[in-house]
């Protein structure tokens, strides 16, 4: 997979590509400047003392002050006030990040060793590619199929562990019409560092069009047979049906169109448009003899145009 680099927004931080990034960066820089000032003061004092009180000889006059209540109370109280302030700075952005707006688009997200699967409200599925509309809050309902994973998009400044056995959620609203990178940030095994995905942010209209047709902005619709060939791979038909005549879980697609098949109940049927359509939607109604009835239904997962495309493709597999 080709991933675009993370674009830098400043020396330290990536570009701000979500609505919450600004808030988090503000908090970052508040801590940053507080730290810089503290560090300069502390190290300035250290350097000055190192110079001023360098040993000159055994006759050095030594201070015998061993404490100062005023100093000690003030350097306890003042930092306490400062850090309580920091707590509230962090809390503000945190509350924003934790509560998704009610109108958020919900995308079901599944993590497993080592891939990301996204299921959209209309049943569309994308793997290792998250497609979201710009300018609309998106809420991911996440779970893991195996071990711990974590969802992290640096340009969005959001992170949330993905845990087996429970749902966790994360939300963001993308502001930049561009692609960026999604990392897994909880160590999950040998493929951990390859568990990345592309996040595609597009205009709402383009997003809707992608949902409807599977076409990215600028892409032309594919001829049906080619779309069918793509679906054969992306919808995992290839897991069970070969193209070269070999037997996997199901009958091969080589020469399938027009072939006469023996059905499990003893009857026979010629494979035509209607049988393919029925086999996709109700696969276990007429199972070919000698094969297990294990195919899941694609009802709701394939659009009419997809079914037409698969039929067109199967006609070409000879």
């Amino acid at each position: 997979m080709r991933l675009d680099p993370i674009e830098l927004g400043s020396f330290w931080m990536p570009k701000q590509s979500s609505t919450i990034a600004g808030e988090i960066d503000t908090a970052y820089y508040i801590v940053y400047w507080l730290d810089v000032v503290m560090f300069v003061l502390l190290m300035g004092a250290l350097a000055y003392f190192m110079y001023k009180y360098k040993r000159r000889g055994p006759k050095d006059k030594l201070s015998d002050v061993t404490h100062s209540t005023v100093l000690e109370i003030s350097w306890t109280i003042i930092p306490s006030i400062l850090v309580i302030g920091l707590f509230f700075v962090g809390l503000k952005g945190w509350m924003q990040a934790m509560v998704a707006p009610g109108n958020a688009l919900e995308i079901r997200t599944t993590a497993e060793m080592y891939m990301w699967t996204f299921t959209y409200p209309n049943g569309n599925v994308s793997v290792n590619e998250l497609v979201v509309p710009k300018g609309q809050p998106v809420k991911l309902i996440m779970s893991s199929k195996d071990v711990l994973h974590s969802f992290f998009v640096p340009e969005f400044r959001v992170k949330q562990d993905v845990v087996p056995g429970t749902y966790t959620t994360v939300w963001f609203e993308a502001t930049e019409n561009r692609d960026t990178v999604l990392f897994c940030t909880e160590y999950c095994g040998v493929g951990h560092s390859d568990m990345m995905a592309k996040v595609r942010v597009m205009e709402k209209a383009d997003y809707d069009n992608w949902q409807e047709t599977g076409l990215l902005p600028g892409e032309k619709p594919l001829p049906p047979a080619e779309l069918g060939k793509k679906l054969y791979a992306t919808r995992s038909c290839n897991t069970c049906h070969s193209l070269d005549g070999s037997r996997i879980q199901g009958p091969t697609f080589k020469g399938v169109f027009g072939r006469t098949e023996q059905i499990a109940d003893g009857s026979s049927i010629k494979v035509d448009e209607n049988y393919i359509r029925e086999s996709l939607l109700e696969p276990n109604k007429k199972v070919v003899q000698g094969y297990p009835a294990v195919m899941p239904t694609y009802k709701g997962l394939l659009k009419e145009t997809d079914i037409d495309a698969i039929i067109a493709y199967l006609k070409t597999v000879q």
Partner: protein
Amino acid sequence: MANTATVDELGHSPEVRGKNYLNQTAGVWSWLTTVDHKRIGIMYLVSVLVGFGLGGIFALLVRLELLTAKKTIMDATQYNQAFTLHGAAMVFLFIIPSIPASLGNFFLPLMIGAKDVAFPRLNLLSLYLFWIGAIFMLAAIVTGGVDTGWTFYVPYASGVSTTSVISATFGVFVMGFSSILTGLNFIVTLHKLRAPGMSWYRMPLFLWSLYATSIIQVLATPVLGITLLLLIFERAFHIGIFDPTLGGDPVLFQHFFWFYSHPAVYIMILPGMGVATEILTTHSKRRVFGYKAIAFSSVAIALVSFLVWGHHMFVSGQSELSSAIFSFLTFFVAIPSGVKMFNWLGTLWGGSIRFTVPMLYGIAFLFLFAIGGLTGLFLGTLSVDLHLHDTYFVVAHFHYVMMGSTAIAFFGGLHHWWPKMTGKMYDEKLARVGFALTFIGFNWTFFTQFILGTRGMPRRYYNYLDQFQPLHAFSTYGSWVLGTGFLITFICLARSLKSGAPAPANPWDSATLEWQTQSPPITENFEKAPIVTLDAYERPAEETA
């Protein structure tokens, strides 16, 4: 060896002249069966240095692999093992036992004017348990390695990883008992064996930090033991505790793990703070500023450390309210740490600062701990942690605290007390070169990682995006400088053992009790039990005049 003038000044009778704990008896067996806290401390010292070397080799391998964005010298499986073993060796074989078990064992009885710890045999048992645990960990390396990360997160560690998780975790489990027994021994020793006149407030502050550390060791380590045992049960017998497919909860493991491992961070840093205090006061010839504040801040850190474990879990799926509470409490750990920082600076103010090798380490400690501590504020701030969690920023932060502060304090302490322990001085020039390379190499390696982290580079990545390659390569070059620095330090100390000049009893003109006996001390520490009449770090009147 007998410097007659020194010996007389210390009031040693002719019978003990020339005798010390090293030459009292000879042979391997006399060491393996010794109950002398000093010999046990030395054996711990050698052991933790071996652990440090092992962890260091893995560290250099990890950095070397990260020189390029794809494969450099090893495959992903080997890389995952290398970073796991680096972490596990450094945490469990080096840094947790480092200062308390080696320098602490050696100097705690000396500093309170005692002959030994309260339970000398228990002390030896601690050492043996440590060795047994270490053998299990080494066995894990030999029999397939470990690839879970030193945190052993489930369900990966309990159900998925095919490596020697049980052997490694069992090793840590056994070492936990060593840690508990050492802590117990120190607590009892400090309560019962202080010399006449050595009140609590006359104790050197290193001992307050060891006392606070011991409390954590005794209270927190059992939780780690239980957790690892449950993990072993789950892995071996499929008893569902943490794995959701067996009905368990993986977040529960994180709570248990960090309930130990966060306080353990203070097991690691508190002794380092104590050593730094001793170095700064001795080599600036100045009594510690704010004695009670430093003493009580150690105890405060020990107590608050039990209430902040959830800041490791802001994005783990724990409740939002828990995260908010843990963030609030976490900020209060910053206060006692800050108080110490101010008091250390106050100690230097108005002193007479000698830039000896230990002092260089002490000053480096202040610099590196300031960075380590201040960068912790980013991670405690809830919203900022969302971005920085599990990135290289965290890696850089904890290396500044664990290595930049604790390990630097440990090596500072080693140089500070080396003359006392071995009776030999070392080559100051060579030691300075070792220090300088260590300090430069450390910042070079790890400051770079702050930048990697804020830019979004995740931890524990074998392959990474090309855009991070220049910074990764830069960090790797730094690691070579760092490695060279440590190598020179070891050569310097080894040469000192072989041919160092004899050390006087009190080469740094220190006011604490361990310097008031010969170098190296006799087996009984002091020929006559000392009677303490001065406050901590106070010098006799004619000396200060």
